[in-house]
C-alpha cells in the first residue's frame, strides 16, 4: 500500500473455466409425487401461511398414498384435505386450525371422536417444530430451546426432554434446558415463487422454515410458480433460499399454493379459508368437495381452470418491484 510497500505482481485476469453442465431436475407433479412420496413415509409440508404446497397435497390424495406421517407446523386446510383423503395416520404439528378463520372438521373428528379412525398426534410448539427442523438440518441429536418449562405438553409428549448444561447458569447453579429431537422427513415438499431447472430455489416475502425443512429431509421436492432461466437466479444469488444440491425435483405448478398466496403472484383466498370451516364440518359435504375438486380433477391445472378466471382475477396483485442491488463486475 503506497510506494514504500513491496510491489507484488498483480495477477492477470483469467477467463473462467467453462461452465459445468447443469442437471435438469424438472418433473411433472404426478411424476414427482410418484417418485418421492411412498406409503408409510414421513412427509414434511412447510410454508407458514405463505406458499403452502396445496397442489402437492392434492396430488398425494389423487395417488392414494396411505399411512403417511405428516409433519407440518401449521396443520391447516391442506392437512384437513389429506386427512379427508385417507392418506394420513400420524400428524406432527404445533398448530391445528383453519388459520384464524375457524376449525378443521376432519381433523377434529379424528382427534375428538376417532372418526373414521384415530389419528396419532405428536404436538410441539412452533419453535419446538422449528428446532426439530434445525436439528434435522444440522444432523444434531437434539436442539435446546427455552420453551416447555411448566407446560403440560411435556407430559403428553415423550419427545420433549431436558439436558443439563455443562456450564453454570447465570446464578452459578446448574442450568437445565428443554430439548427436542431432530426430524428427518423422508421427503420435504415446499412451494416457492421460482427455481432454476437444477433446483436453486428463490423465495421472497415470508420464507418461514422452508430451507431448514428441506435440509432436514432425505429428499426434497420444490414446487414453483415458474421455472426460470439460470440467469434469473444467478442475477441475485442471495435470493436463493435453497441451493440445488439439496433439491431432488423441481415441479412447475402455477397457482399451486391456493388458497394460500404467493407474494407477488396472487393473493390469499380469504373467502375460501372462511368457507372451509363450513365445508369440512359436514363429513358428507367434505367428501363431495374432495370428489369434485381433488379426485375429480386430473391435475392442478384442471383445479385452477375450474375455479375460473373471474375467481383468479379477484386474487390478482399489482406490481411493487424491488430496487436492484449491484453485485459488481470485475473491470
Amino acid at each position, binding site marked *: 500500500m503506497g510506494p514504500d510497500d513491496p510491489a507484488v505482481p498483480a495477477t492477470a485476469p483469467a477467463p473462467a473455466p467453462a461452465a459445468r453442465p447443469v442437471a435438469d431436475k424438472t418433473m411433472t407433479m404426478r411424476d414427482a409425487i410418484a417418485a418421492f412420496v411412498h406409503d408409510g413415509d414421513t412427509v414434511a409440508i412447510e410454508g407458514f*401461511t405463505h406458499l403452502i404446497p396445496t397442489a402437492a397435497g392434492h396430488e398425494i390424495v389423487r395417488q392414494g398414498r396411505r399411512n403417511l406421517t405428516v409433519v407440518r407446523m401449521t396443520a391447516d386446510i391442506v392437512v384437513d384435505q389429506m386427512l379427508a383423503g385417507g392418506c394420513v395416520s400420524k400428524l406432527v404439528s*404445533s398448530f391445528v386450525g383453519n388459520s384464524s378463520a375457524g376449525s378443521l372438521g376432519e381433523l377434529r373428528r379424528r382427534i*375428538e371422536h376417532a372418526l373414521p379412525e384415530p389419528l396419532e398426534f405428536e404436538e410441539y*410448539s412452533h*419453535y419446538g417444530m422449528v428446532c426439530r427442523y434445525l436439528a434435522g438440518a444440522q444432523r444434531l441429536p437434539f436442539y435446546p430451546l427455552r420453551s*416447555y*418449562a411448566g407446560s403440560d405438553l411435556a407430559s403428553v409428549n415423550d419427545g420433549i426432554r431436558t439436558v443439563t448444561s455443562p456450564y453454570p447458569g447465570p446464578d452459578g447453579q446448574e442450568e437445565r434446558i428443554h430439548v427436542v429431537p431432530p426430524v428427518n422427513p423422508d421427503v420435504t415438499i415446499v412451494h416457492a415463487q421460482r427455481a432454476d431447472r437444477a433446483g436453486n430455489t428463490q423465495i421472497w416475502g415470508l420464507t*418461514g*422454515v422452508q430451507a431448514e425443512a428441506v435440509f432436514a429431509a432425505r429428499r426434497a421436492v420444490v414446487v414453483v410458480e415458474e421455472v426460470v432461466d439460470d440467469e434469473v437466479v444467478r442475477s441475485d444469488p442471495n435470493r436463493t433460499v435453497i441451493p440445488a444440491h439439496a433439491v431432488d425435483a423441481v415441479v412447475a405448478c402455477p397457482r399451486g399454493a391456493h388458497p394460500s398466496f404467493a407474494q407477488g403472484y396472487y393473493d390469499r383466498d380469504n373467502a375460501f379459508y372462511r368457507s372451509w370451516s363450513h365445508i369440512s364440518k359436514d363429513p358428507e359435504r367434505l367428501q363431495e368437495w374432495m370428489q369434485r375438486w381433488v379426485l375429480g380433477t386430473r391435475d392442478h391445472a384442471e383445479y385452477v381452470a375450474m375455479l375460473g378466471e373471474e375467481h383468479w382475477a379477484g386474487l390478482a396483485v399489482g406490481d411493487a418491484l424491488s430496487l436492484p442491488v449491484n453485485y459488481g463486475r470485475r473491470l
Partner: protein
Amino acid sequence: MNAAASATAPHAPDGASTAPADAPATVSADGPATGSTDGPATGSASREPVTSSELLSVVASRELAGRRTVFAGIGLPTLATALAQLTVAPEVEIVYESGVCGAHPSHLPETIADAVLITGAEAVLSMPALFGYVLQGGHIDVGFLGAAQIDKWGNLNSSVIGDRWDRPSVRLPGPGGAMEVMANSREVFVVMRRHTPRSFTAELDFCTSPGPDRALAEGIRPLGAGVTRVITDLGILARAGVGEELRLVATHPGVTAEQVRAATGWDLQVADALATIEPPTASELRLLREDVDPGRVYLR
C-alpha cells in the same frame, strides 16, 4: 431497541425478569395517564356508542406506554398497538409471528402473514431468526396472547377442553408460538373479550403456555414476568411477576368488583385502590375509527 435515546440501555437479555410494578396506565385513580386533555367521547366521529372491541383496543393501547417492541397477532392487539403508535408509544413496533418487522401496510392486514404486511416492510425474517434471535433472544417487550382458559397465575390453555389431551371434547388449535411468547417476552398482555368463570378458571384443563411460576417449580427461570395484564370486557387484572396472583386493579365504569369476582372461577383478589377505567376519549375513538380501522374490519 429502536430509539437512539435508548442507546445506553442493553438490548440483550441480562437475566432480569421483573415486570414494571407500576399501576396500569389506563386507570383514572390518579388521573388520566394518556396525557389527553379531552374528555369522554363527544365529537362528531364518536357519536356512535363505544363497542366492546373499541373499548378493549383503547384500554390495551394505553398499557403500551413506554414499550418499544410488541409481539402481536392480528385483531385487537394490532389495533391497540396502532393506536398506541398514535398516542402513548410513538415508536412502538409490532413484530409478527410470521417474521415481519416494521410493517408499513397499504391496507389493514387480515392475517399476521397478509401480503400487505410484507410489501414495504423494513424486514422479513425466517422462522429460526424470528423465534430464535428476536423472541428467545429477548428482544420483545410485550407479547399479546389470547387463550381459551386462564388461571390466577396467568397460565394459559389453548390446547383442549376436556380431561384428556388425546381425546378432548374440544380440540383447540394448540400452542402455536404462544409458549415461546410467554417464556421469552418481558411481559405478556392477555385480551379476553368475555370475562366468564369458564375462561377464568381455578384449574386449567391443560396448561399449554405456563407462566414463570410453573416454570420455576421445575427449577427453570424464564426471561419474562409472564402475564402482567389481563384486559377484559369487565376490567383489568394485573400482577407484577413471579409469586403474585392476578388481582383486579380496575373496572370499567358501572362494573363492580363483585360482578368481576362472580365472573371469575377463582377467589379473585381485589386491589385496595380499585380504580375506574377512564372511558375512551374522543381523540382515541377518532383515531381508532378514522385512522386505524376506518373499514371497521376489526372494530365490528
